[in-house]
């Protein structure tokens, strides 16, 4: 990020962008884009879907910033837009008859292949790929809650705001997702 923008707080960038400052908006894109793309990539299937989703999110953000009141943080607002855009795409799949179906057995087979691949570039990379595979076993709301809390570091209140639910429900979603993920990965060596 531009050194001048690097230390500028989110609310200031949002305020400037709302007033038409495209440099400030570029700062928002650079600061939050990788996280949104990572989140969308794990909610959707394939990089094209994720990239289109994030593109929609930032366009909506650019148009919506003048009416952004700052009731939540900019980051929470952007993740909420991402959740809406990603879930809208997920809902489209059944109608199109192309919703990917990932059976548990297939994920386990692919995890085994990944684990035993002598060519794997690094342990860290293989572990990350294993987790991304395991995430596909989670229903979208569990997956979203887990990604926002454990990877992006949002608070329980922020996750609840993004999902439009309560912190109690978020705790339940997280508990179930952790159990599934830990069980799926426990054979990893």
């Amino acid at each position: 990020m531009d050194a001048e923008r690097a230390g500028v707080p989110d609310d200031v960038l949002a305020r400037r962008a709302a007033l038409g400052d495209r440099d400030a908006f570029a700062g928002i894109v650079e600061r939050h884009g990788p996280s949104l793309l990572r989140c969308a990539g794990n909610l959707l299937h394939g990089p094209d879907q994720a990239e289109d989703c994030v593109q929609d999110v930032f366009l909506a953000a650019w148009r919506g910033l003048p009416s952004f009141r700052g009731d939540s943080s900019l980051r929470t607002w952007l993740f909420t837009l991402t959740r809406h855009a990603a879930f809208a795409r997920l809902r489209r799949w059944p109608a199109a008859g192309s919703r990917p179906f990932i059976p548990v057995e297939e994920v386990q087979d692919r995890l085994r292949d990944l684990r035993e691949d002598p060519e794997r570039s690094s342990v860290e990379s293989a572990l990350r790929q294993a987790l991304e595979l395991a995430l596909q076993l989670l229903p979208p709301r569990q997956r979203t809650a887990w990604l926002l809390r454990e990877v992006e570091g949002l608070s329980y209140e922020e996750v609840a705001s993004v999902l439009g639910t309560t912190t109690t429900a978020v705790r339940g979603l997280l508990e179930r997702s952790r159990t599934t993920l830990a069980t799926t990965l426990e054979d990893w060596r």
Partner: protein
Amino acid sequence: MTAIPDPSRGDQVLARATEALRRHTPTGWRVVRAHLLELVRRTHRPSVPVRGRHGRGEFVVSGGVLTTRVRQAVERTPAAEVTAVRCVTGADDHLALVTVETGVHHGAHIPTTAAAVRVAVTAAVRDVVGEDRGVRVHVHVVDVIDGAGGAVGAVGAGGVDGPQPPR
């Protein structure tokens, strides 16, 4: 002999994998970023039309353009930062009122800064919509901010308003 399952094994692997995912920047981000910035550069926000006048007649300009020019004008004013701009148009989209909310830097003299903002905004409005036809400019000081734009503490909203200064 059967190995006893270790229930914490999955949690340990999950913790390591989570850490790896946190550190990972998605492949293709640089390309996506370039596309996004180009897209936003070409995307205009819907905004109200504002009617202006020049030597050969009238024209219509986007309220967004006016807002941007007002922001830029205030940016050049020492010790002030615009936080909101509101334009009110009357009949036939003629501009009636521009309200500019500003933050004033900590330690700056508020009346002096507000007056300077008002002069800058008045000039910017005239520059965009042409000859003045009774457009009122209202400067509202709503915040005290540090140099980076962060709030130091809100002040009681004070307005600087009144007829246009003589030109």
